[in-house]
Every structure is written in structure tokens, then in C-alpha cells.
């Protein structure tokens, strides 16, 4: 067991974990933050995407111990403290950017990173920006609309 300390959604969390424990399993099973999902086992689908120190990362590709000292933001920590939705959450809702919702948390967290880097992306930049996230339901068009919706209000 290895001791880890990290800040998750603004709260300091300490735990003893197996060195092989994936960050996504630490978040989901020990912190009960089940918004990040596990959709594959080869780091292809992006359903587990969270922010580590402000950058989007597939949390199935990171051991919990590697996140030592990091600031983590998960989908549960994205809305404002007063409960106001993040513009991307608003965008996904307004534009029907989700159906089953399984890829959605990861898709939104990737889009947060995308809009940080490129506040006014073209449609092509949006499509390229989310190629690391798979969605089987929407055909992506409403996701693109959702990100455009957020960008126009960001």
C-alpha cells in the first residue's frame, strides 16, 4: 500500500492504495465519484476523462499514485458551488448532446480542455478535439452543437 494525497473537486483526499490501482477506480470506488466511467481497457474511449491540474486526462491511464499532489476535477466538480451548471453542461442539455449519457462526463471534460485551449473553435477543430472520446449514440452532431453552444457563451 502506498499513501497518496490529492485534491479532488477542491477537497484534500488521503488514502492508502495499491500501487496498481487506477486513478479511475480510486475515484469511483474509494471516493464514490462515479461520474467518470470505464468504457474500455485500452484508453481509447475517453469515458473516464477528468482534469488533472487543469488538463484533460484519461483516468484509466493513470495510477492513483501518479496523481500524488495533483488537483483533480471530475464531472461532479464542474458546476459552480451554487449549483449553476458549467456552460458545457448547459450546452449538452440545450442541444441534446447526449442520449445514454455514458460517454457524457468524459466528453464534457475533454471539451473543457478544448475550449480552454481554443475558446472559439471551428467545427473541424471541435470534431478533432473530441476524437479521443467515443460516443455510440449521437453521431456527434449534437455534441458539436453543444460545444459550439458553450463556446458562444464562454
Amino acid at each position, binding site marked *: 500500500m502506498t499513501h497518496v494525497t490529492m485534491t479532488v473537486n477542491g477537497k484534500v483526499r488521503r488514502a492508502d492504495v*495499491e500501487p*496498481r*490501482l487506477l486513478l479511475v*477506480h480510486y475515484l*469511483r470506488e474509494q471516493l*464514490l*465519484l*462515479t*461520474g*467518470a*466511467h*470505464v*468504457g*474500455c*481497457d*485500452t484508453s*481509447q*474511449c475517453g*469515458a473516464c476523462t477528468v482534469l488533472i491540474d487543469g488538463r484533460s486526462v484519461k483516468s484509466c491511464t493513470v495510477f492513483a499514485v501518479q496523481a500524488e499532489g495533483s488537483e483533480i476535477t*471530475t*464531472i*461532479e466538480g*464542474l*458546476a459552480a458551488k451554487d449549483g449553476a*451548471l458549467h456552460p458545457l*453542461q448547459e450546452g*449538452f*442539455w*440545450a442541444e*441534446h448532446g*447526449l*442520449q*445514454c*449519457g*455514458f*460517454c*457524457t*462526463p468524459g466528453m*464534457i471534460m475533454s471539451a473543457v480542455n478544448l475550449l480552454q485551449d481554443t475558446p472559439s473553435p471551428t*467545427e*473541424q477543430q*471541435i*470534431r*478533432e478535439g*473530441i*476524437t479521443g*472520446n*467515443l*460516443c*455510440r*449514440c*449521437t*453521431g*456527434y*452532431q*449534437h*455534441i*458539436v452543437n453543444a460545444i459550439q453552444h458553450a463556446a458562444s457563451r464562454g
Partner: protein
Amino acid sequence: MAVSIVLPKLVGERVKRREDPRLIQGRGTYVDDIKIVGMFHLAFKRSDVAHGRIRSIDVAAAVAMDGVEAVFTGAQIAEMLGPMPIGTPFPSPPHRAVAADVVRYAGEPVAVVVATNRYTARDAADAIVVEFDPLPAVVDLERAMTGQPTVIHPDFPNNLAVALVPSGTGVSPDGSTVDNTAIDRAFASAEVVLSQRMINQRLVPNAMETRGVVAHFEPGKGSMTIWSSTQNPHILRTMIAAMTGLGQDQVRAIAPEVGGGFGAKINIYGEEYVAAVVSKRLGIPVKWVEDRSEAFVATTHGRDILGYVDIAANRDGKVLGLKLRLIADIGAYNMLLTAAIPTLTMLMANGTYDIPAIRTTLTEVFTNKTPTDAYRGAGRPEATYFVERAMDMLARELKMDPAELRRRNFIPADKFPFATQMGAVYDSGDYGKALDLGLKASNWQGLVAERDAARKEGRLVGLGLAMYVEVCGLGPSSSLPTGGWEHSQVTIERDGRISATTGASPHGQGNETTFAQMLADQFSVPIEHITILHGDTGVVKQGIGTFGSRSQAVGGTALHLAGGKVKAKMAKFAAALLEAHEDDIVFENGTIGVKGAPASAKTFAEVAGYAYVPVPLPPGLEPGLSDEAFFEPANNTYPFGCHISMLEIDRETGEPTLLRLVAVDDAGNLINPLIVEGQIHGGLAQGIGQAMIEEAVYSEDGQLLTGSFMDYAMPRATDFPRFELHATVTPTPVNPLGAKGVGEAGTLGSTPCIVNAAVDALAEFGVTHIDMMLRPEKLWRIIHGPRQGSGQGLRQSSGQGGKA
């Protein structure tokens, strides 16, 4: 006195989904999010060979691990669990949830571990040592039909799961007598006959949430609760009860948030049965969640039908006859609906056309592959593909406009309901209207000019067009072994809010929104006052489930009918309260009043409260406001449409790029066009995926080579242009809503229209057919000729289509 508000009508409006606030905040509860105190985890040891006899299985190292509660081999599971049932009337070989002697596909379970957490369970499964005596594997379906090099199930000679079923012109309804006179005459008299072998390749459904199950048998109560990522919790309950020896009253099945299904979560799987019997045997809750690598081999695949298509026509474009010889590769076992899926291909073989003589035959073959079952469209995309490719080949042969050829052969709009020779009765349709809109919306003539101009520049640009008609809204009960109805119960609560249950079990379809829209209009109350309950057999008394685009057409109608019953009773209470006649009662903007006397109206909640404390109780009425309805449709529904695409192929690399996708879909009346668009987009993505990039490929020894997202091409956002959607509206007479269903439609027209476009783009090379998917290497060889490539090693024909 009621507060005066005006409620907007919601049916037909783009209402934002009520499901979304939880899902966009990571607050949805999927199976893997469920934790129960004392819960153990399962992991399955799976066969790494495609065909072999288990010589030995050594679980000692696994059993000895800390945290391992138990290990069960196939033989031990067989003591608790019988062979798995199927839902079709075809003969089926015995199929055990965990193989005890022979494995027949790579990925078949051979043992199961019960451990304190998922990591330990996996470690223990890895520590189990299985030795196989290998048997020859067969993966090619036509080779399998020879019985060489192996017969997979001893009672099925030549691996024929279904030997030969004919249907169509001259075939009696039960298939027992076959008269070839008409079909032979059609082909003998035709001026043109074209023949083509076409592969509708195997696909992996890949819902983003893999399967998962939590089974919790409570010994003190003698009852079982089972959560599963399923499309149909009521069917799950029925099957779990039957397989565990419990009564249906003792099993509660819950489909919590479900992360997509696409047909692959209709089947009730061995892992669900195993979780149930292990929980029951050990008296502990257990969870199993499939890894993606497991899902690729352990969750059913889709499609995989080979079609030999012959089309006979006169030079004026009138089709005289169509023959379709279907051979389906169903993999190693029959699952719940496996054998029935290709029969839907037969049923819809003539598509939107009135073809005078038509004959289909179906053979289903076992191979050493993962079993197939439903995948979005399930048999209908295959039918559409075969007939639309054939029509396109014919247009090319006759040098006729592909739209005009189709128009000459449509079932006329004034012939509905139309009984086809395949045994379907198409409910309503206007195919010419959909085609006209497609041509207009896409500016077809403009596209032709654009294509021709591009060709002058040396670019390889093609146009494709396809019509489709789908059978959905399943029932009636004669067509489904589960029953073909759907159920709903609508309750006006004492505070005037409404809860309604539905047996439809959404997993992305948005029924919490669409069904609430319907009730809001029906009762004229705010949508915020309505809760739609689903996916829990403890709450939803009866149901069938969600598949075959049936939620709205069948489930929505049941809801509407149950709502109508409650509303009628509520009107009686209101009449008593207002001292009026019930026929004069109006529901308006959250109030219930007497026609023409709005000042005396009561609030909805006041009438509800009175119904639960009825002093005095009106004569002839029972207290309370709750009623149910079962809706059994008299027929299926038949939505249709026209899809058009423009495609460019890079001359240097062979890489195809989809430039335009214009879809006209007619799903009848729409409840929420925003949600309908989402459904069509998703279907298009899967249909385009099949045409362009997706394919499950096996090695000759039965290993799935495309067994991960690194190897199987899942469509990504960069694979698509912006889809252009249009609609015609032809309501169905089958249900009072006029709604047909739309979940699968997108997969039907898109696939052939893209292949048609690819053939058009490469027509200058003499190509008349290209098998899917449109791998750049395959297209490059067509462009650059076999001499420039090795010409060897092509797994499939690159499609120099035969001309008769």
C-alpha cells in the same frame, strides 16, 4: 379558485430532456455504480481457443488466493443451472452459461471466480490453468456448410442451424410447398438479369457501457433483486425466475441507467444467470462488470449475412423478379433471438417495391465465432442493403437515373395498407413523396453537376441514393414469444402530481421526456408535475422492453390509453365536485372546470385530493385515481425514407470521405423532433460506420483480430460531415398516436446509399459492386489495378461484380 396560467402544448415540440440534469453532472447510476454492503465481485475465465475440448482445469492457485471466496467450473455451474433457453422456435443445441466440456468460440466462459474485489477476482481468473485438446475451427460460413473441417454441434450436420427456409411468391405460408412457376417465368422473360454475391459483414455493437450485473439474493426473504444493463428488465425477470427456480413474484429486475444497448442487450446472457445462481448459492450479493476486451468476444455481434442476389427486369426499368439466397453466419450458438433476426431480412426483402415475383431462401450456419443476435436494425438493414444495391446495379446497367428506376417500381401510395408477398402488411406509406423531398433537399441535379465537374478535374466523386422501409413497433403478440404488447399505469397522486410507469425500458431514447410531454398535454398540467417510472419490475408491474423501435408506437400508446382511463375517472370526480355532467368537464391549464364556466374551476390538485378522500363518494365510483392499460397493436409499423450521399475517394490513397449525407425519414407523427433527430443521427452514424469503417475480422483459427478499440474502427467525430435531415409525415393507422418509431431508421438507408456512391465514384474502373467495408486498400486496388498490388491476400473479393 385557480391561478390563471397558460400551458403550452408540448407534443411535437423540441423539449429539452428531463433525463439530462443528472447525466451531465455525473449523477446517473449505472450498474457499475451500485454498491451493496458485503458485495463480492465475479470474474470469468474464458477460453482462448475457438474450438477445443477441456482436458483439465486447475483452480487450486485461484482458490488459494487471499480474498477469493469461491471458484466454480463449468461442471459445478451445471449443477446449479440448466441449459440456456432461446426465444425462437428453431431447433437449438444445448448451450451452457459456462462450458463444461467443449468450447466453441474464443471467449466462451469456462470458470467463474468470486472474490472480495474486482482486482483480486481478475488475478484469480488469470491463475486458473485450463488445458484444451484443440479441435479444428471453422470461421468461413460457406466452408462450414460443407461440414469441414469440423462439425460444431453433433446434432447439426454440416453446421446447419437452419437448413433452408423458403418464402415469397409461390411458397405456402408455412413453407411446406413451393411453386416455382412465377419466379421462373419472371426470370425467363426478363430482358436483363443481374446477379451479385454481397456480404453484409459482421459488426460489433459496442454500446459505450459494457454489460454488467449485480445479483442480490436475500436468504431471509427468499427473494432476488438483480440489476442489469439490459434493454428489457421484465424479460430478465421472467428468465431469471425460470432459471433459478424462483417465482416471478420473488424476482425483482432493475435496469438502472443503461449506457446504450443497440440490440445487444436484449439477450439474457449466461453471466446474468451465473450471477443469480452464485448469489443464491452463497447467499451474498455479487457484481460482474464486463471489460471491453471481454465485451468484444462475449457480447453478441450483429449482421453477418451473405446474400446471393438475382434481379430480373425489362429495359424500361420495370423489375420482374428478385431472388435472394441468404446465408447467415450466426456464430457458435443460438442466443435469445439469433435465429429470428435473418427472417426479418426475408420479410423485408422487397423493400419499397412492388416486385411481381420474389423468392428468398434462408440458411443459418454455425461457426466458431461469437454468436450473433440483434444489432440496431436487426435484419432490416441487411434487407435494405441487398435490394438497394441490386436496384442500383440495375440502374447502372440500364443507364437509367437511379431515382427514376426506383420510382417506376414503388408500391403506389394509394395501395396502402399493402400486403407484400413476403407476408408483411405495410401500414401506410408514400415513397414517392420521400424520394421527391430527398431529391429536392439534396439538390440532386446540382449534385450531379458538381460530381461531373469534379470528375473533369480527375477527382473520384460519387453519388448514392437509397430508399428504405422498416418493420418496427413490434408486436403484435403473434410475432413475439414474449408477447407483443406494452403496459403502462398512470396514477394521479393525492397532491395532483402524476406518476406513470412504462414497460418500455429506455437506455438513451428519452422516454422520461417524451412520455411526460404526452401526459402534460393529455391532462393539461405542467410537465414538471410528472414523473415517468421505468426499468424496475418492482415498480413497473408489467412490460416487455425496448427493441425494434417500439417504445413510442407501443409503449407510448399504452401510456396514452392508461392516461385516458384515469382522466375519464377524474372527470367523474370533478363532475361530482362541480355538480356538473362529466361530458361538460374540461381539463385546462392545471385546472378542471365546467365548459363555459371557468370561474368555478377547481385546481387539478383539489380534484385529486377529493378522489382520495371522497366525502361524499359519488355513486358508482371507487376512491383513487390510478389505472393501467395493456396495448396490443394489431400490426407492426413501417417507417420509411430516402437517404442520399456524396462521397469522394482519394485517387492516390483510396481513402473515402463522406461529403454529404441527406436523410429524409418518415416516422409518422413525432412527439419530440429534437429527440427524433438524435435518434436518426445515431442510426446514421452506425449505418455509415458499417459502410465505411467497421468490420469484425477473424483469423482462420477463430481469433477475433478486431478485438479492441485499437483494432475495431469505431466512428469518431471526424468521420462524419454534418447530417442534413428532412422529414415527411405519414401517420400510421396502427396506433392512435400515428407514431411509427425511429430508433433504427438511420441504419437502413445510409449503408447502401454510401456503397452506391462508392460504386458510382469508381464506375470508370468498371466496378459494379464493392463489398463493405470501404477499406482504402480495397478501393486503391480497384483504382490502381491488381497488377500494381500483389493481388493476393485480399480477404474478400474487391468486387468486380458479375454481370449476367
